[in-house]
C-alpha cells in the first residue's frame, strides 16, 4: 500500500520544518551519495502569491534541510526553455540565481543539455529525454496544486512536463494523458512534493485564482500523490484523464492509498463542465485528424512509389477483410 503525507501547515517555517522531518522519518529523503535534482514548477514568470509557481522559500528550506543531513550533497535545480522565456530568465527573475549563490547549488537549463529522443508507440512524436535522467540521480519534484483546463488537476505528473527540453512543448498537448504517464515512467521521481499552501482554482494552470489552503502533500510515488491531490481538490481521480490513463496502464488500485495526516477536503472551483467537455472534444478531433492525415500520407506515398500490391500490405488486416467481403 502506498503512503502519502497530507499536512495542514498554517505556521510557516516551523510547519515546513516539521513536514520535511516527517518526509525524512519515512525514509523518502535518503539520496545516499547520488546527486540530487530538484524540479520546482517554474512554468511562467509570476509571483509566489499567484499560486502558479513554486514558492522559492520552500525550495530554499528543502535545500538547507538536505545540506543539514548531508553537507557534501550535490544539488541541482532544473528547468527548460519554453516558447516565451528561457530557463535562465526564469532563474534570474524568480530569485534562483541568488539562491544558487547563497546555498551552493547548480542551476541547469535542460534545453541546453544533450538529450535523446525516446519513441513511444502511443504518441506520434518522440519524447526528448535529457541525459541527466540517464544518470544515477535522486529526483525531487516540487509541484503546485492547481486546476488544469485539459486535465482538471495538475500536480506532480504535470511538473515533469517542464523536463522536456523542447522549446515548443505545445505539440504534446493533444497527447497529454500519454505523455504525462510515460514522462513519469522515464523520470520516475524518488520524492514527489505538492505545495498547496497557495493553490490555484478556476481556469488553471495559469489564468486561475489563488486559494489559500495551507497544505503540503508528499509521497515517494507520484501516482499516489496525484491521486490524493485530486481528491483534496474535490475531483474524482477516475475522472481526471491522465490519472485514468495511468490507472489503466498500471492496473493501480487508487482506493488503496494510506493517507497520513490531516483529512482535508476542498472543493476547487473549475471551468464549466460544458467548456471542459468542449476542450476534450477538441483534443479528440485533433488526435483523430492527425491519425487520418498521417495514415493517408503513408498510404498515398506507398501507392505512388511502390504500387498497389505493396500498399495493400500496410492496410490493417481487419480493413482488408472488410474490403474483401464487400
Amino acid at each position, binding site marked *: 500500500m502506498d503512503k502519502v503525507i497530507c499536512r495542514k501547515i498554517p505556521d510557516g517555517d516551523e510547519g515546513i520544518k516539521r513536514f520535511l522531518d516527517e518526509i525524512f522519518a519515512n525514509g523518502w529523503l535518503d539520496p545516499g551519495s547520488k546527486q540530487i535534482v530538484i524540479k520546482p514548477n517554474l512554468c511562467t514568470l509570476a509571483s509566489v502569491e499567484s499560486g502558479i509557481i513554486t514558492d522559492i522559500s520552500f525550495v530554499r528550506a528543502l535545500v538547507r534541510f538536505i545540506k543539514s543531513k548531508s553537507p557534501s550533497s550535490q544539488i541541482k535545480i532544473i528547468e527548460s526553455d519554453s516558447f516565451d522565456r528561457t530557463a535562465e530568465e526564469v532563474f534570474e527573475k524568480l530569485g534562483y540565481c541568488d539562491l544558487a549563490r547563497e546555498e551552493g547549488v547548480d542551476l541547469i537549463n535542460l534545453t541546453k543539455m544533450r538529450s*535523446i529522443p525516446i519513441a513511444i508507440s502511443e504518441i506520434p512524436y518522440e519524447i526528448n529525454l535529457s541525459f541527466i535522467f540517464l544518470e*544515477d540521480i535522486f529526483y525531487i519534484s516540487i509541484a503546485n496544486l492547481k486546476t488544469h483546463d485539459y486535465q482538471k488537476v495538475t500536480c506532480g505528473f504535470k511538473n515533469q512536463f517542464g523536463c522536456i527540453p523542447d522549446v515548443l512543448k505545445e505539440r504534446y498537448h493533444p497527447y497529454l494523458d500519454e505523455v504525462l504517464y510515460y514522462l513519469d515512467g522515464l523520470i520516475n521521481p524518488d520524492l514527489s512534493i505538492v505545495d498547496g499552501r497557495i493553490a490555484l482554482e478556476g481556469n488553471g494552470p495559469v489564468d486561475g485564482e489563488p486559494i489559500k489552503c495551507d497544505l503540503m502533500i508528499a509521497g515517494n510515488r507520484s501516482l499516489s500523490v496525484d491521486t490524493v491531490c485530486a481528491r483534496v481538490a474535490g475531483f474524482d481521480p477516475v475522472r481526471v484523464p491522465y490519472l485514468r490513463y495511468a490507472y489503466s496502464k498500471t492496473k493501480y488500485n487508487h482506493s488503496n492509498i494510506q493517507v497520513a495526516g490531516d483529512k482535508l477536503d476542498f472543493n476547487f472551483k473549475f471551468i464549466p463542465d460544458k467548456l471542459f467537455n468542449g476542450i476534450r472534444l477538441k483534443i479528440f478531433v485533433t488526435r483523430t485528424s492527425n491519425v487520418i492525415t498521417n495514415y493517408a500520407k503513408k498510404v498515398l506515398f506507398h501507392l505512388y512509389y511502390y504500387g498497389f500490391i505493396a500498399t495493400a500490405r500496410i492496410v490493417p488486416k481487419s480493413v482488408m477483410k472488410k474490403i474483401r467481403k464487400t
Partner: protein
Amino acid sequence: MMKRIRAGIIGCGMISKMFHVPAMTHIPEIKLEAFSDVNGEWANELANRYSAPYSFTDYNEMIGKIDMVVVATPNALHTKISKVFLDAGVHVLCEKPMGINVEECEDVLKKETESNALFMVGHSRRFASNAMLLKEFHEKGMFGEIKSMELVMGHSHTQWITRSGFSFKKELSGGGVLIDQGIHLIDLLIWFSPGQIAVTSSVGKDILGHGMEDHAEIEFSLSNGGKATIKTSRIEEWDNLCTLEGTKGWAKFHIDDKSFLKICSENLRGCRKLRHLQVKTGLNNIYLDQIKYFVNCINKNVSPMTSAGSAVKGIRLLKECYDKMSIIK
C-alpha cells in the same frame, strides 16, 4: 586560412563512387586531388565529375601529390597499397577488410608504427548513430559485463554488385560473405567485447558454387565465459537485428537500414517502470561521419579507433573462423 588536405582515391569502383567520394565533397578541409584505377576510364570519370586535377592508372604516381588516400580496391590489394603510402608519409583510410592474411596485416601494423602518417580501416558500422550511442552507454557500465551477443547481417549479393565483380573471385576477395559482410560483425564484437575471443564453431554454406561461403554462422566464447554468435548471408535479405546482453541489462539495435536502439538496464531509472526504452537515433551517413572522424584524427594527430592494431585483431579472429570452418555445399 584553413590548410586543406589533398586527398586521393585508389579504386574507383562502387563503394568510392557511391559513398566515399560524395562524403568527402561535404568536408571543407578536403580537396579531392587525384583518382587512380587500373581502369583509366573509371578514374577519369570521377576526376572529371569532381574536378580533380589528376587521374592515374598507376597509384604510385599519386605520391607527392596527396596528403591522404582512401584505398577502396579489391581486398587482396589493401595491404600492399597501404604500405606504399604509409612509407611515403601519406595518411591511409583503407576499406575493410584490412587485408586477406594476418602476416601482411602485421606488416602494415609495423609500417604504421614506423611512419608519421595515420592508418585507419573503414569499419564504417561503428559510426552508425545507434552503434555509437550503444558504445557510449556500454562504456558507462549500463549493461554490465557482456555475457551474450548476437550479430546478424544478411544482404543479398544482388543488392550490391561491385564494378569489378571481385567479391566472387577468391584470389581477390580472400573469402566469401564472412570477409565481406562478416568482418563488420567481427569488428563490432571486438569493439564491444575487447577481451580474449575464441572461435568455438564455424560453419559455412557454399550455395552459389564459387568455392566460398555464401552463408556463415560462427560461435565465439568470450574471456568472461560469455558467448557470441555471428550470422551472415549474401543470399538472403535479413532483418538485421542484433542483441547484446550483459549482467545489468540488454540492448537491441539494427546494424543498418533502420536506426533505433532498444535498451533496458537496471541502472536506468526509466526502466524501473517502463520495460525498456526505445531510442530513435536516426539514420546518419556513416561514410561522412567516418571521414570526418579521420580528418579530425589527422588534424589532432591522434591514432584512430580502428587503427592497424585494432584491425589486426579482427583479421586474426577472421583467420581462426576460416581455419575452423566446415563448408557445407
